[in-house]
């Protein structure tokens, strides 16, 4: 059993990063996630593990610092909130194109524009459909607890290096600010140069030795045929993720007539709604996608032939509902309920929406 602590979601991101042997964090302050860098600066990991922490001049600079350091085979990360992630979009696209591993945390707030600093899930499309330019996908994890904020930093770095792809932890202001009990992993050492050589020795910019070709981190390719091959290689990688890495939690779905689909803090509210509805005699279940990309489309497709309807519950205007509709492919009714602007609905409100949408 690891060390148990009562911690805030944002603080645990910092703690997990240090403990899993992260080499560097580059970021820029923005509510509701500034505690990530503040915690790191207070813990001063550069004195112990040797992890670098740097406050950059902008999110643009942050992501390109991540690009440079990730290109050297290091485990590096950044965190921000919605407007900051928009600024990073070009850099994230470059990282996807150059196939660089990294962890990017988005503690979402409401938009568009400067919007609100209250919680939101309005960046679902941005996170799961790329967000920047070009055909690419991030590996997207949606934590629903402080424990998962911790676990997904560790898992995120694992996935980032397994697939040489940027990983996004798509959290929201609720999870970022929430205090919960969390079990921490024991401190792991940062990778040694020898380990980096073993893991990323065939591409990282660690300095060209006479026994190997030079390494170049780039997303540029002028030859159309080669570029198409690069695109196909990326798509094959995303398909591998779809085959092997889908993660979700399914709650009381076996006998359900209706299934709600919700991620992050919306799923916690829906868990309560399941109980309320079942007390009223309505058989309701919940699928909580943990990976938003790859999306758990197979399990949704399987239930599509068994249930009377799906309700997508999101803190946005209805974004994930489109992925559910694609998975369901017309086989059953798919509805959406959500609140925006930083408003978090109550479990009863969701239950009422279920009744209204499906006329029970």
């Amino acid at each position, binding site marked *: 059993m690891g060390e148990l602590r009562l911690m805030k979601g944002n603080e645990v991101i910092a703690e997990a990063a240090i403990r899993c042997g992260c*080499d*560097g964090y*580059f970021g820029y302050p923005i509510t509701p996630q500034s505690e990530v860098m503040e915690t790191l600066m207070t813990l001063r990991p550069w004195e112990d593990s040797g992890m*670098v922490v*740097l406050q*950059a*001049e*902008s999110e*643009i*600079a*942050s992501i*390109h*610092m*991540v*690009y*440079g*350091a*990730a*290109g*050297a085979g*290091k485990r*590096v990360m950044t965190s921000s909130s919605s407007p900051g992630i928009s600024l990073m979009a*070009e*850099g994230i696209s*470059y990282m996807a194109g*150059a196939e660089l591993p990294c962890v990017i945390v988005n503690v979402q707030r409401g938009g568009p524009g400067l919007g609100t600093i209250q919680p939101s899930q309005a960046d679902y499309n941005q996170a799961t459909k790329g967000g920047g330019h070009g055909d690419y996908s991030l590996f997207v994890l949606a934590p629903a607890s402080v424990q998962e904020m911790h676990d997904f930093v560790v898992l995120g770095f694992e996935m980032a290096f397994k697939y040489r792809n940027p990983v996004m932890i798509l959290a929201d202001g609720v999870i970022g600010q929430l205090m919960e009990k969390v079990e921490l992993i024991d401190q792991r050492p940062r990778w040694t140069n020898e380990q980096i050589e073993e893991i990323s020795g065939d591409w990282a*910019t*660690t*300095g*060209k*030795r*006479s026994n190997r070709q*030079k*390494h*170049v*981190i*780039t*997303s*540029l390719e002028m030859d159309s045929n080669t570029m198409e091959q690069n695109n196909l290689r990326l798509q094959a990688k995303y398909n591998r993720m779809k085959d092997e890495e889908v993660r979700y939690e399914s709650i009381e779905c076996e006998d359900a007539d209706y299934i709600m689909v919700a991620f992050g803090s919306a799923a916690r509210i829906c868990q309560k709604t399941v109980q309320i509805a079942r007390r009223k005699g309505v058989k309701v279940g919940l699928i909580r996608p943990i990976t938003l990309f790859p999306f758990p489309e197979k399990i949704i497709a399987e239930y599509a032939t068994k249930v009377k309807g799906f309700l997508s519950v999101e803190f946005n205007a209805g974004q994930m509902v489109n992925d559910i509709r694609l998975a369901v492919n017309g086989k059953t009714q798919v509805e959406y309920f959500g609140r925006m602007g930083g408003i978090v609905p109550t479990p009863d409100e969701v239950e009422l929406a279920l009744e209204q949408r499906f006329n029970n």
Partner: protein
Amino acid sequence: MSVLTERINEIIKPENLVYAKSPLLNDDAMHYCPGCSHGVVHRLIAEVIEEMGIQEQTIGVSPVGCAVFAYNYIDIDWAEAAHGRAPAVATGIKRVMPEKYVFSYQGDGDLAAIGTAETLHAINRGENIVMIFINNAIYGMTGGQMAPTTLIGQITATTPNGRNADLNGYPLKITELIAQLPGAAYVTRQSVQTPAAVRKAKKAIRKAFEIQAKKIGTSFVEVVSTCSSGWKLTPVASNKWMEENMFPQYPLGDLKDSGRADADLYRIKG
């Protein structure tokens, strides 16, 4: 051994050799236009890295601009940065591998327009990197549009009647700005249009790399450069135009060589 090298060896006997191409430069034909300064500066960087024996420790950061393919020519590890972000990319590399030599290589649009924030802040942090700045007063790669360093009256694709200060602002002397920053250890402005200038520029680049090992801040080498295609002049006429028009606006020489002294004024004592 390439056919070219064989032929050269037939003609030039080792005992007569006065100059050779650095082995760090490969035999690929560079994509630069005739008369372009980029190729000369590439050569100087390759020579300095070779002479200092730091090939295995050096990582270059290429820009978006005509030098985007710098990584094709010099045989070291490279990261190709997004437009303007080379100083941030170099910062990331250097911070996680402080024992390496890291340099960025950027044009005027990259360094002094879209990437101004990254440029000033990397230097203001005193990142222990070398920054090479190719100032050709134009956007070479995209077809000769106005750059922040374009001269008043200079005709470009986006200033067809010449740069007009009322409409387009003033030529940006970013190197003078940079020299004000405590994080800058060495700031110099060079050129490569004559053999003498090339030798001086090489000395400056060498000094910049040597300063990096001392960890006393950023070294910044501007090279006032030609873009014969963008300027629509022959290579020879370009050199003349540069000397007559660019040098008065961008005078050559060291702007700062204070090492750590400047930064020390701000350091917390104790």
